[in-house]
């Protein structure tokens, strides 16, 4: 024991070096800063939501389902969301039917068929730019092409025009997310498929797409969310801002889509928020809550679908 105190052994030296926790000031600072940024982002969202729910709660409490099932009206006590919800749902269906196949198809061509030339890279760069074009520009495009030029097909200011406009709007996002999903699939999988004598399409259809599908669905969540919340392009593409008469009872669903006035939830919210009467504040807030709930439902459905794919 005495000798050990005089000349430190290796164990002593190592013990001295390892023991004794230092306080990592910088590390603590970083983790606190990161936590704060999370709390601020969450805080803003929660405040917004709480504010909307608080303001709109009386509407749900007083009118219940009536608020969701009534048509638009200049009287805030009677005005409801049925036309807006119908419009938004149909528009989303349009986006899914038109933009998904087109976007995924374009992505497959770009990633799996097109050779990597300057022209291809130019096209890809431009698709990325298109995703950043302000949505009002797509509204102008929708107005001039779908409402005016193709009025023979779309019947002018109908859900067809609005749906096609939104589909074109989200198309670049769909192409980009689908491309990224395909690019994330390891090259080894393609080689394996080619190696057993698959044609390019067999490789894509049977091996590539099943693997890329979950990531593509994640991309489609973003796409649907974007389309669901857009109001500017719809204003130009013919959505009705104020009140309109619902088509007479018994009008078929197809006619309501192809040959009738329409509106959408964001449009309704936009319009109500500009009304001077105080009562509109509450129903605007309630409409926002409904829009958020619908959006969450669609997203949740997509995520469940994606998990199904992944488990397979």
């Amino acid at each position, binding site marked *: 024991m005495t000798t050990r105190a005089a000349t430190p052994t290796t164990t002593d030296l190592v013990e001295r070096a390892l023991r004794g926790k230092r306080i990592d000031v910088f590390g603590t600072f970083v983790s606190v800063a990161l936590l704060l940024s999370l709390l601020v982002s969450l805080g803003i969202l929660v405040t917004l939501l709480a504010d909307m729910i608080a303001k709109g709660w009386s509407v749900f409490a007083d009118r219940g389902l009536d608020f969701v099932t009534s048509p638009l009206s200049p009287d805030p006590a009677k005005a409801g969301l049925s036309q807006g919800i119908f419009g938004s749902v149909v528009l989303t269906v349009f986006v899914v039917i038109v933009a998904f196949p087109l976007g995924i198809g374009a992505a497959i061509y770009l990633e799996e068929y097109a050779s990597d030339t300057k022209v291809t890279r130019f096209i890809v760069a431009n698709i990325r730019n298109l995703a950043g074009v302000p949505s009002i520009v797509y509204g102008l495009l929708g107005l001039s092409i779908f409402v005016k030029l193709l009025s023979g097909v779309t019947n002018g200011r109908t859900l067809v025009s609005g749906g096609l406009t939104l589909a074109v709007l989200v198309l670049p996002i769909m192409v980009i997310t689908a491309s990224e999903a395909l690019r994330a699939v390891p090259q080894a999988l393609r080689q*394996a498929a*080619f*190696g057993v004598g698959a044609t390019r399409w067999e490789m894509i259809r049977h091996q590539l797409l099943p693997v890329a599908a979950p990531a593509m669905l994640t991309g489609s969540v973003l796409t649907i969310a974007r389309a669901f919340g857009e109001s500017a392009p719809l204003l130009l593409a013919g959505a009705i801002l104020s009140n309109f008469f619902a088509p007479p009872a018994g009008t078929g669903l197809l006619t309501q889509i192809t040959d009738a006035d329409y509106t959408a939830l964001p449009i309704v919210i936009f319009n109500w928020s500009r009304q001077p009467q105080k009562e509109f504040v509450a129903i605007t807030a309630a409409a926002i809550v409904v829009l958020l709930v619908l959006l969450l439902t669609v997203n949740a459905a997509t995520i469940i679908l994606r998990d199904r794919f992944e488990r397979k």
Partner: protein
Amino acid sequence: MGQGSVEDGSRPVLRTVVERERRRTGQEEAVFDVSHLEVFYGDFQALRDASFQVQARQITAFIGPSGCGKSTVLRCFNRMNDLIETARVEGEVRYHGVDLYGPDVDPVEVRRRVGMVFQKPNPFPKSIYENVAFGPRIAGFKGNMDALVEESLERAALLNEVKDILDQSAIALSGGQQQRLCIARAIATNPDVLLMDEPASALDPIATLRIEELMQELKKEYTIIIVTHNMQQAARVSDRTAFFNVDVRENGMRTGQLVEFDETGKLFTNPSEPATEGYITGRFG
């Protein structure tokens, strides 16, 4: 299980025809006849002027240092180089006398006859059964798929380990099992040739040994070409060995070239080229 159950009648099994020819003529036909093969990737020449023949039902090993072009040559035999956009092949690769790079040759048909096993096991992220069944299915196989899957797994010496878990994901298998699954997948399309690109380099010694034993079993029916970094492996398993080397030009261009091609025993004990001797005795590479 006989070989017959693999045949689906839609096309004659090439191996059977080759065997009949051999019996009739009494001489070995070359499966691949390579003459003046050169491969370029863009401006870069990966391989210069290689000529040699690959015999049926033998294991031919390609050895050599990194960048010598051995994998590049291997990928010419099933036109895998086609998938690299900048790749260009000159010279001739004749497969049973047919120019593989002829104008109306379908690479998909080539790959159905010349199967490939890759360096890193790359099973499809599907069930074990689906991994094996995919190739035959897209080739239009109409026979008993269950029997074909089982027979392919049996030949790849994997059946005993997986016969009760055929519907489970192939990704859950060990690396060595995955590689044997890839071999089963490759032989399920009933090919004539198996190309193996360093098939054991990602495996442990025991799994490697199993693959090597399997190759000895498979060569009774298939022509096998293996690329390997491992000289002992080439010496152990192969009948003939090709030694490729990197030739560095004054301008710094590195091009692969075939230095020597001979019986494995001769090449490893009594090589005719000094470069071969230097490589196999470990003086470089």
